[in-house]
């Protein structure tokens, strides 16, 4: 009740002083101390918070470290029915042998760290919290001082106002006397508490510094010890398992990692099951196409697609082996997209090494112009194109699957270049691309 009464009587002054109607006394010395004290209060709060953050981070670090080791170990051990990982992956044998040891080391480390963290809790966070409670007491004293100051200013203001009043009434005189008394009390109270604070503040600041010294030192050694524990464990593990953990730049670790990286990455990327399914029916069609392709002359496909064009130059047409011939005609037409890869009739105008071989094969093209006779022949033979064919050199005849081509000259083998006419254009084409009607 007393508190509320006081607060009420102080309120008008708080308002008037805020808007500059009433004078407020200032003690620069005290304000300076108070600013310092406020920053210390914040510091204490921060140190408690950050210590907590640090402890949590350390806990996380070691928990996550242990968890990482555990899961890594599971991955590097046979899963369910698997057997003999080392046999299958001799290059990873070192890792496979050591994951378990690593897991144990990390678990031990996590247990080792427990007491350290407890130490931080009791020896650092504890005292810091104590300090904070001491500061709260001081803060209370400061608030009290502020109230006393308000009282002092309030009475001071009223007193000056009354004194300055030109003609005072009787009651004014009475009030003046009462105010003088109040003012004296307020002055005494304020002076007392203000001086006490000013006297004790420097002492407190000193103590705060003295307080932080041993606290900091302790904390420092605890932190150092955490790093030491980790370092020691890592080194003993590395020594035992023959890992080189000398301190090298991080970039080097990354680089050496890159060097050790195997083709597992690309192999995985080529797996079908990691590719999104667009449409199952399309997949089915593709697999059908693939199957039929494999059934149609693998020999032809491999020889043409697998070898780069340079080797084809040497003698492309002959390499389309005889075996391919029959199977080509039997095969269902592959879809256009895969067709290109499967059955190109690759050759290039022979120029160098393969000249002789290719020349014999390419021999037919020149003659046609000299042989207009077949046209005169009574019967005109037609062949039907089985696949699309695009001209690859001058003198080639392009056509689409299904075109009827007038056969001008037929070589002995389907593996050779035949001559034909389509839409008035005459040219050569691979014999195995067409079917005789």
């Amino acid at each position: 009740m007393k508190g509320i009464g006081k607060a009420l009587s102080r309120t008008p002054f708080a308002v008037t002083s805020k808007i500059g109607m009433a004078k407020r006394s200032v003690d620069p010395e005290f304000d300076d101390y108070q600013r310092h004290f406020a920053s210390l209060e914040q510091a204490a709060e921060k140190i408690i918070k950050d210590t907590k953050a640090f402890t949590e981070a350390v806990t996380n670090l070691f928990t996550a470290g242990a968890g990482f080791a555990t899961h890594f170990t599971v991955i590097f051990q046979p899963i369910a029915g698997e057997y003999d990982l080392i046999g299958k992956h001799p290059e990873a044998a070192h890792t496979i042998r050591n994951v378990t040891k690593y897991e144990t080391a990390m678990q031990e480390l996590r247990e080792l760290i427990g007491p350290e963290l407890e130490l931080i809790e009791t020896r650092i966070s504890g005292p810091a919290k104590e300090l904070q409670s001491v500061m709260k007491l001081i803060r209370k004293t400061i608030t009290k001082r502020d109230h006393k100051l308000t009282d002092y200013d309030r009475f001071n203001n009223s007193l000056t106002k009354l004194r300055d009043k030109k003609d005072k009434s009787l009651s004014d005189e009475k009030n003046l006397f009462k105010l003088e008394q109040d003012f004296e009390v307020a002055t005494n109270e304020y002076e007392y508490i203000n001086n006490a604070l000013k006297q004790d503040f420097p002492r407190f600041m000193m103590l705060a510094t003295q307080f932080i010294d041993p606290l900091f030192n302790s904390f420092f050694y605890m932190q150092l010890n955490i790093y030491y524990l980790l370092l020691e464990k890592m080194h003993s593990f590395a020594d035992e398992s023959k890992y080189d953990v000398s301190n090298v730049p991080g970039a080097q670790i990354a680089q050496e990692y890159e060097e050790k990286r195997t083709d597992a990455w690309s192999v995985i990327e080529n797996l079908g099951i990691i590719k999104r399914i667009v449409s199952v029916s399309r997949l089915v069609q593709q697999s059908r196409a693939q199957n039929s392709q494999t059934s149609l002359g693998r020999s032809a496909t491999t020889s043409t697609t697998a070898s780069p064009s340079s080797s084809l130059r040497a003698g492309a047409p002959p390499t389309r082996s005889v075996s391919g011939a029959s199977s080509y005609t039997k095969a269902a037409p592959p879809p256009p997209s895969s067709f290109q890869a499967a059955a190109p009739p690759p050759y290039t105008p022979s120029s160098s090494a393969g000249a002789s071989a290719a020349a014999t094969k390419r021999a037919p093209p020149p003659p046609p112009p000299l042989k207009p006779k077949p046209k005169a022949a009574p019967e005109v033979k037609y062949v039907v194109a089985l696949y699309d064919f695009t001209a690859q050199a001058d003198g080639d005849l392009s056509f689409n699957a299904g075109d009827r081509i007038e056969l001008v000259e037929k070589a002995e083998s389907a593996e050779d270049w035949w001559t034909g006419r389509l839409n008035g254009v005459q040219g050569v084409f691979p014999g195995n691309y067409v079917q005789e009607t």
Partner: protein
Amino acid sequence: MSWAGFKKSVNRAGTTLLQKTGQIERTVDREFADEEAKYRIFEKECQALQKDSKAYWDAMRAMTAAQSRIAETLETFYSAADRTSEGAMAGHAYKRSVDDLDTTFTRELDVPYRTTISEPLGKMCAYFPVVNEHIAKRNKKLLDYDSARSKLKKLIDKPSEDPTKLPKAQQENDECKEMFDMLNDQLIAELPQLLDLRVPYFDPSFEAMIRMQAKFAEEGYEKLSGVQRYFADNVRDDYAAGQLDAQVEGILQEMRELSICGGN
């Protein structure tokens, strides 16, 4: 969902129900089930590993960041009274080394950690949803196949009036079987491959992890231990003997006795 997709899912729901009640027999594929079980273990472990690897990195960062902030706060304490004391010097040295640890060091390890740990794990974990999609698709097609087969069987057992029905059912059965077989065969062939490849895939990460952990410990230890030079000679022993704690307690007591703490 499209209308076709909706129709499919309704049909499949019906099939599942009929299977549960034993009206339609269910295809059991031991081989696939085994592979799937193994894959599930792998998937779970990989995801846990990814989580832990991230937590590890975050903790490493948080640890040095907290140290850096603590160092900053210490400066505030020292500046309250005596800026040139031995303690203040040590505090300053401490700040320098933890700042160094926090910025330079973590920056140095940032990229390597990502290349050697986070990325391989992230990539592997990104494959799982796609693989799961394949498995889900396979399971759906299996339901379709089961239902088509049972329809066909019924027609054979009890021939219909309509002669076109049987070949149609036969064709549907064949188509479903083809789809299912394709997906199933692919999974059975490739799941073990994926699992097997995990060893060469993750192998280099292990050594990198060890080296980075060791590096973190070593850098931290070395940078911090340099600060000791600024300490008074007896500090280390005092710490070991628990003297420092006593000092802290003593000062707190003195503070409480100050008149401004209400101790008068």
